[in-house]
């Protein structure tokens, strides 16, 4: 196997996820080279060949052009496996590259198996093992699933020349406004998930948070529905937290939520579904209706 790893770079910085790609290739014991759209002062520390496209010309977002550049690098590297992170960058580019190479795409790999790759299915309640039926393959890795490689050495850089192609115009980045609460500092967080049922019930979770002396948080659907403000959202597209106690109320435990709270010291989950994937990170899973359990616990704590 010969892999081409597509590194990540954003707002002028190399992203740490790039080292997860290298960690994956090392775990596979695969020969590898890298591709990156970046500036020359942001290269990964690795002893390997690196195909570099200058970000000033190729721009941070231009999938039609980046696809062409990746195909060129893959050809030069003689790569049969192209690897991305399953991120906003990876899931946008990988299918374009896969189609151009007539290759199978294997999305969101969490583990390497003897005969193939392991992927989550049905909100991680199940696991699917798959393999490519094609000579070439495109793989995306679940963020955080592979140990990042150690940072050492310097790449041998080959610069790619750029011919303009664009289907989409990049207008700029926007950062979500900082909210009032910094959940990152909270020692106790009680979060409401879709299982609370309706907007009024978020107050129940807030009351429990108060009784425990902590802050309340929320999963994404609760925020998307406008039941809680965005600064309360925990997860990959919200805040990353590591409190002493995290209480997940009616939260299934999707990977994007877990990524934001799995470093909590103690996790208590309340869920009607005994098989909910939150059980993977919880210390205690209480099988109960949150609408009954939360007020009862609050009353006991206050009483």
């Amino acid at each position, binding site marked *: 196997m010969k892999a081409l790893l597509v590194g990540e770079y954003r707002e002028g910085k190399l992203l740490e996820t790039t080292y997860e790609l290298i960690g994956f290739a090392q775990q596979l014991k695969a020969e590898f080279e890298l591709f990156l759209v970046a500036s020359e002062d942001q290269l990964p520390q690795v002893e390997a060949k690196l195909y570099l496209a200058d970000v000033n010309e190729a721009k941070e*977002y231009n*999938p039609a052009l980046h696809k062409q550049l990746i195909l060129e690098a893959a050809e030069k590297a003689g790569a049969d496996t192209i690897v991305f992170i399953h991120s*906003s960058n990876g*899931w*946008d580019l*990988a*299918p*374009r590259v896969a*189609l151009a190479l007539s*290759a*199978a*795409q*294997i*999305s*969101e790999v969490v583990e390497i198996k003897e*005969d193939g790759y392991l992927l*989550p*299915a*049905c*909100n*991680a*309640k*199940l*696991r*699917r*093992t*798959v*393999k*490519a*039926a094609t000579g070439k393959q495109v793989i995306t890795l679940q963020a955080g699933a592979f140990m990042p490689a150690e940072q050492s050495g310097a790449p041998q850089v080959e610069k790619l020349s750029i011919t303009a192609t664009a*289907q*989409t*115009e990049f*207008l700029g*980045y*926007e*950062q*979500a406004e900082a909210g009032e609460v910094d959940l990152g500092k909270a020692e106790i967080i009680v979060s409401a998930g879709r299982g609370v049922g309706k907007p009024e019930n978020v107050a129940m979770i807030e009351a429990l948070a108060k009784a*425990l*002396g902590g802050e309340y948080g929320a999963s994404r659907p609760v925020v*998307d529905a*406008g039941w809680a403000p965005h600064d309360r959202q925990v997860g*990959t*597209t919200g805040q990353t937290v590591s409190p*002493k*106690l995290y209480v997940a109320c009616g939260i299934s435990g999707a990977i994007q939520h877990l990524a934001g709270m799995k470093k909590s010291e*103690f996790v208590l989950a309340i869920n009607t*579904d*005994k*098989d909910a994937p939150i*059980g993977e990170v919880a*210390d*205690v*899973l*209480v099988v*109960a209706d949150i609408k009954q*359990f939360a007020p*009862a*616990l609050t009353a*006991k704590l206050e009483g």
Partner: protein
Amino acid sequence: MNILVCIKQVPDMESRFKVAASGTWFEESDLAWRINEYDEFAIEQAVQLKTEVSGADLTVLSIGPARVKEALKKALAMGCDRAVNLVDEAAHEKDSFQIASAIAAFAKEKNFDLIFTGMQSQDRGSGQVGVLVAEMLGIPALTTAVEFAYADNSVTVRRELEGGLRAAIKASTPALVSCQLGLNTPRYPTLPNIMKAKRKEMLEIPVADLLKEEARLTTLSLAYPEKKGSAQILEGDVADLVDQVIGILKEKTAVL
């Protein structure tokens, strides 16, 4: 304007899944089915666009067995004009490339100005179909949209990146937009609209008429995850559970 929205019907994720005898998929009987969550945002955006632009026509498409007509009916009741079921009893055996090939073959000469899809499905989560359809049709794909605007043959989308960052991007039509959670607030079909939907066209096309491609991905097995967690599971009467939890918090954490 000619609009297409592609949807998938998926099992309710709170279901108890059983691995089927084939060992490569789950048992489909006894499951409750619904529209893939991401696709509900796609339908809503397509319906909103249709109302903004006069004379727009909106087709909703789904690949699968007879049960997917329920999902299509809901989409019609939400405001789509006609439904197309690419009938396939073995849709779950197709990979993303085949699903996209069938959709692209259907869309090829129909000149859709805009195609909406969800960014991924809840059961497989591959996140490939939308981008593949766009690439097959040679039109731009704008993925992971959390904001959408259309004006004068061009679409502007805010795509969601990690950690609260968004990127504003723009393309001219024809184009495909893949929709992320929170893009809008999907409507609930009203009773009069559910009645009206019954009279709307529901076209059936055997998938074999459109799909000539072999799968590129082989599923070897489907299984339960090896239990990594060691969660203590508490069940029973709520009052007892409360006492137990307080006991555990006192013993194992420093918060009480």
